[in-house]
């Protein structure tokens, strides 16, 4: 059962230029095909940790301690899908460029791969004949394009930074379903950052709870939800406001 981890983060510490510590001593590992949830509120350092894994720390933040060892490539899906796309470049063209550079194919093959990816992500077929600018697509569609771009890099790990927070609930559900089925199909591992414990619990087998730059609890999802050791974790669990059971059952999730 013990396989070699593909990502190991060991006592990672991040600090601002002013020596202020932003992330303290974070350690976790990720196995092939596994999903790990990083949960916490704003200022918990969850997004910074994710950026450190990607190797894209914002200006003024430095890694001052610890190591990140990764055997595979990773790519990232951001919170704001419109901000992650070039507004002046049509989406198929953008995706084709990524495929062309990352998969080293011909332009023609790249376009074919790009269109396949978009189809797989459930984007409208009309993109085949008529390319569109990000501004002409809905937020959910833009996020699908962003995910397609991330997948075009054939990542071993998909890093997700609150990819559904800016979206409507029905769209959120569709995106989550898409990510789950793609993961089953392509077998990439995932680090999923969110403030919503319910989303993390539905997607990830293990959770890391962060608060103010520190890892306060981690463990297997079901264990953590049933017996949280920390009051903060309990608070996060309670913050998922309960809804009564819908008569006739729910159409989706789980």
């Amino acid at each position, binding site marked *: 059962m013990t396989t070699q981890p593909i990502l190991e983060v060991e006592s990672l510490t991040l600090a601002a230029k002013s020596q202020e510590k932003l992330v303290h001593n974070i350690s976790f590992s990720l196995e092939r095909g596994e999903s790990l949830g990083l949960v916490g509120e704003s200022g918990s350092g969850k997004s910074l940790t994710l950026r450190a894994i990607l190797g894209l720390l914002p200006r003024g933040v430095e890694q001052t301690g610890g190591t990140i060892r990764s055997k595979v490539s990773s790519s990232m899906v951001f919170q704001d899908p419109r901000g992650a796309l070039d507004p002046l470049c049509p989406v198929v063209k953008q995706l084709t460029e990524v495929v062309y550079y990352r998969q080293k194919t011909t332009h023609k093959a790249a376009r074919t791969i790009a269109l396949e990816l978009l189809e797989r992500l459930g984007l409208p077929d009309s993109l085949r004949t008529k390319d569109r600018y990000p501004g002409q697509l809905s937020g959910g569609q833009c996020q699908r394009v962003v995910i397609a771009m991330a997948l075009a890099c054939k990542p071993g790990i998909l890093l997700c930074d609150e990819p559904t927070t800016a979206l409507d609930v029905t769209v959120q559900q569709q995106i989550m379903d898409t990510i789950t089925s793609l993961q089953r199909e392509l077998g990439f591992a995932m680090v999923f950052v969110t403030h919503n414990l319910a989303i993390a619990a539905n997607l990830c087998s293990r959770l890391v709870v962060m608060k103010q730059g520190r890892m306060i609890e981690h463990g297997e999802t079901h264990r953590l939800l049933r017996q949280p050791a920390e009051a903060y974790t309990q608070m996060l669990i309670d913050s998922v406001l309960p809804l009564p059971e819908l008569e006739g059952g729910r*159409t989706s999730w789980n």
Partner: protein
Amino acid sequence: MELALQVQDLTVRYGGFTALDHIRLELEQHTTLGLVGESGSGKSTLARVIAGLIAPDEGQILLGSEELRKKRSKEQHKQIQMIFQNPDASLNPRHTVRQILAEALLFHRIVDRSQVGRRSTELLDRVQLEARSLDKYPHEFSGGQRQRIAIARALSVEPSLLIADEPTSALDVSVQRSVLELFHTLRTELHLTMLFISHDLGVIHAVSDTVAVMRQGKLVEVNTKDEFFIRPKHEYSRELLSAVPKMPR
């Protein structure tokens, strides 16, 4: 039960786009109506029309038995107050809390000038902020605290209807919880009549007595809270409810 607010055939168009399409809605006194919908459903537009920030193209609004026209009286303005989503932008950055509260209190002659300080302290106490917050500027507060100040300002003029437009959506989950608790306390203590707008069904469940669902400018369902969350009438409501991520059992 007496009706606090009636909205009749309210329509707002922007060019060819219909933001609100013949909305009919009633709100009973001392109850909270939770208005839910996805982005672009027109829920914020409806709130702004009721608050008098946008003039409707058709239809009318009755506050109690009084019709609210395009040009509202000072008294009518006082009766409807609103709390907005973005805590970073809901307070004038160059006014202290004291100035913010005093302006509302004095403009509507709620208390004498000599009583402003005392009343402001009471208001802050209502929203669980300390009196020394009075001389601070908005940027010195966290998002949740700013939202509390916005609530204090709205309550200061003793409105008969309080509109809250996604007041907790921009806040952290722990802060969201405490602000929702505050709303709950205020509801029971002050018998507020509230129109509470949110895209978050969990929040709507926590605050509402009645639920209304909007989609693309139309009202698709109005139902009691208990009915709505268990037996929604409309297919779209069911779709929304089943899309909410839930904790695994």
